[in-house]
C-alpha cells in the first residue's frame, strides 16, 4: 500500500526484528522504519508498530520486563492510546503484557521445555483489525519458538476476554499450558494484539506456508477502510 508507514522496534536481544520488517515490507509495502529501544520518539505518521520476537535484555528479571520500561515504550503506549495498530509477537507479546497494554502474563511453559515447532491455531475472532482477512474458525499453521508462552490471567479476566471477543487466536492443541489454550489476545479497543506464534515466519510458500500473511493484509485493509 503506497504511503503505508510502519515501525519495527529493536530491543537489545531482539532477533526477529529483521524478519518482521521484511514481512511488513513484502505484504504491506510502503516504508518500514527500524527504531532502536533507546529512542524517545517514534517516526511521525505511523500506520503500524510491531514489537518483534527475541530475548530482550536476555530475559533478565522476567521475559519482556526490562524492555517494557525502555524509553521507546512510552511512545509506543502513547501511540497505542491514540489507536495506532500495535502487534507484539512472542517476546513482543511479553513486552506488551509487562507494559500493561495487554492483560495477563506469560509464564514458563508448563512442560518446562522450550517449544519450537509449527502449531495449529484457530482464528477465534475474524472481526479484528488484525484478523479480518481470515475466515472465522479457520485453522491455520504458524510456528512457535518460546520458553515463556504459558498465558495466565485470573478467571474473571479470562471470562471478560472471551466475552468481549478478545481472544484472537487459540491453540488447536495444548502447546505450553496456556489458560484456555489462548495464543493471542487483543486489548479492549482492538488495536493492540499480542501473540506467541510467529506470523512473520509464514508469509510465502518458501517458508513452508503462508498462513501468517493474512494478518498483515488485515492491517492494511483496516487502514483502507478507516
Amino acid at each position, binding site marked *: 500500500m503506497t504511503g503505508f508507514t510502519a515501525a519495527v522496534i529493536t530491543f537489545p536481544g531482539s532477533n526477529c526484528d529483521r524478519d518482521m520488517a521484511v514481512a511488513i515490507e513484502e505484504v504491506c509495502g510502503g516504508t518500514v522504519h527500524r527504531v532502536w529501544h533507546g529512542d524517545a520518539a517514534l517516526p511521525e505518521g505511523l500506520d503500524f508498530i510491531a514489537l518483534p520476537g527475541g530475548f530482550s535484555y536476555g530475559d533478565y*528479571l*522476567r521475559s519482556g*520486563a526490562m524492555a517494557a*520500561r525502555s524509553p521507546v515504550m512510552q511512545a509506543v503506549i502513547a501511540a497505542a492510546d491514540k489507536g495506532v495498530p500495535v502487534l507484539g509477537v512472542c517476546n513482543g507479546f511479553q513486552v506488551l*503484557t*509487562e507494559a500493561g497494554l495487554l*492483560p*495477563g*502474563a506469560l*509464564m*514458563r*511453559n*508448563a*512442560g*518446562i521445555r522450550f517449544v519450537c515447532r509449527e502449531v495449529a491455531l484457530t482464528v477465534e475472532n475474524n472481526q479484528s483489525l488484525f484478523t479480518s482477512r481470515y475466515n472465522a474458525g479457520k485453522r491455520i499453521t504458524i510456528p512457535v519458538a518460546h520458553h515463556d508462552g*504459558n498465558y*495466565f*490471567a485470573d478467571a474473571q479476566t479470562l471470562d471478560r476476554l472471551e466475552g468481549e471477543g478478545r481472544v484472537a487466536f487459540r491453540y488447536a492443541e495444548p502447546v505450553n*499450558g496456556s489458560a484456555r489454550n489462548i495464543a493471542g489476545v487483543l486489548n479492549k479497543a482492538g488495536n493492540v494484539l499480542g501473540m506467541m506464534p510467529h506470523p512473520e515466519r509464514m508469509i510465502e510458500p518458501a517458508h513452508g506456508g503462508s498462513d501468517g500473511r493474512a494478518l498483515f493484509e488485515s492491517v492494511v485493509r483496516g487502514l483502507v477502510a478507516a
Partner: protein
Amino acid sequence: MKVRVFVSLKNGVLDPQGRAIHHAIEALGLSGVSDVRAGRMFELEVDASVTDEALDQMAKQLLANMVIENYRIERVPA
C-alpha cells in the same frame, strides 16, 4: 542500608519450575518435602532516606509482576 525484596508467585498460580525442583529433590532421595514454590530475592543497597512507599513502588513497578506475583520487603538491620 540493605533492603531485601522477596518475590513469590501468588497462591493458585501454577509453578512448573517449583514442581521440577521438587522432583529433583525427590530424585536425590531426600524425602519429606510435599511442595516447592520457586521465587526470588533482591538485595538492594539504599540510602536511609528511601521511604517504604518508594520501596513499594520499586517492587510494584518492576521487581514483581503483580498479575502473578506477590512481594515482601524487609529492611535488614545494620
